[in-house]
């Protein structure tokens, strides 16, 4: 059913937002103008405050007073162009606006079947009044004017929250705090040697070597790379992965330490090795020694 609101010589189609006069002239109202006019009709004869318009028609969004003034101007202009008789939007100074109609021009709601919109099928309900601008039948009128006021109120509350700049600021602050908290926690709590992104990776047959050399000599990567090219590194039989860490000894100046962590992915096993006196001369043999040990581990 399409609802038609008849005010004076104007006919407002609530589906298409078309407002037309008896001469057949028609103007399509913009959504906001229609919302404001619809709200004025609901409260015909009563003053509607600016705040109420912003709350209901703008869903609580922060807009300037000029926005409402423009919309009212648009409605008045529409009335003028359609030569509306006995109906006008009056300004209530410093408060808001009210829709005033002359006796005989009181809004009527007609329900018109969508598929057969002929005047003969219209169900008409008329709201009578004695006054020009202070009718008592507003409440009854409200109940029949679309859209459903309950749904509108619920939606506008959520919309108001989502459309608020304050909500944005609050959410941005929460996101920033969340990121900071995560960053601080993350910096304090990680097992660094587990992270292979800081290692150099070498693949030799079925085994994978991850090497990180933080020593002052920084020789491990080059030596191991050369040894791999010259086939001097033994191949492990069961495809182990090694994390190799070369670093300066804290207890013996000039000495290098090698820590190795061997992982047997197939057997879910691992082993830790430490050699406390690694040099550029014995590094490859130390590495081969631990590969040999790892071989024993995976053969067990």
């Amino acid at each position, binding site marked *: 059913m399409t609802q038609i609101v008849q005010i004076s010589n104007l006919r407002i189609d609530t589906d298409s937002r078309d407002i037309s006069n008896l001469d057949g002239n028609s103007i399509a109202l913009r959504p906001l103008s229609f919302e404001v006019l619809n709200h004025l009709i609901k409260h015909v004869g009563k003053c509607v405050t600016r705040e109420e318009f912003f709350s209901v028609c703008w869903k609580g969004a922060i807009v300037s007073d000029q926005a409402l003034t423009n919309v009212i101007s648009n409605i008045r202009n529409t009335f003028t162009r359609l030569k509306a008789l006995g109906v006008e939007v009056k300004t209530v100074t410093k408060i808001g606006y009210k829709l005033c109609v002359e006796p005989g021009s009181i809004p009527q709601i007609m329900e018109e079947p969508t598929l057969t919109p002929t005047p003969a099928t219209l169900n008409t309900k008329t709201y009578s009044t004695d006054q020009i601008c202070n009718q008592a039948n507003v409440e009854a009128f409200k109940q029949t004017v679309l859209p459903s006021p309950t749904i509108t109120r619920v939606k506008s509350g959520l919309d108001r929250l989502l459309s608020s700049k304050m909500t944005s600021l609050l959410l941005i602050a929460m996101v920033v705090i969340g990121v900071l908290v995560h960053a601080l926690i993350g910096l304090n709590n990680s097992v660094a040697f587990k992270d292979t992104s800081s290692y150099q990776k070498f693949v030799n047959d079925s085994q994978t070597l991850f090497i990180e050399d933080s020593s002052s000599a920084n020789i491990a990567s080059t030596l191991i790379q050369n040894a791999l090219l010259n086939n001097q590194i033994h191949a492990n039989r069961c495809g182990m992965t090694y994390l190799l860490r070369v670093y300066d000894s804290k207890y013996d100046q000039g000495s290098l330490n090698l*820590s190795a962590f061997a992982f047997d992915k197939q057997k879910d096993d691992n082993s830790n090795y430490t050699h406390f006196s690694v040099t550029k001369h014995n590094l490859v043999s130390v590495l081969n020694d631990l590969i040999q040990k790892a071989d024993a581990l995976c053969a067990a």
Partner: protein
Amino acid sequence: MRRLNSLLIVLLFAIGSFLMYSRLTPTLSGTQWSCSTKKKGFTSSSYKRYRKYEEFNVLNFVTDKQLNFFQKGHLIDQHGTVSDFELIYDIRYRSDKDHLSFHFEQVDWNKKGSETFVRDKNSVAGLTFDYIYEIHGNSLFLTNITNAEDSNYVCFKAD
């Protein structure tokens, strides 16, 4: 504005979920981990006489406070003489998120090695060691708060 706020709400929810997930404390109570450690090339005066040291450890988190730390292994000196040892540490531990604190209460020796070695092992009784730990798959990664190289260990789930 509505889209921005909706996006921010989703982002906030994602960060919150990730934080909660990443801060979940994995329970260690009732788990067992084994670690195999081999050391060579000693340079310190007390260990120079040894050629090789091998140990096998089992960390048995008996309750949410009590840990039995079993160690057995051997030291081989420069002449090839093998000295076996076996001991159990009673440890009170405390885990808080990814922090793990071990307080070594006492050492029970099943088999003692050389005097220096026994003194070395006994010296940890009464001391507390703090670690950061991370469980990745079946591996338990341990390191200390400064990520010092000599505090890095990997153990494998034994149960």
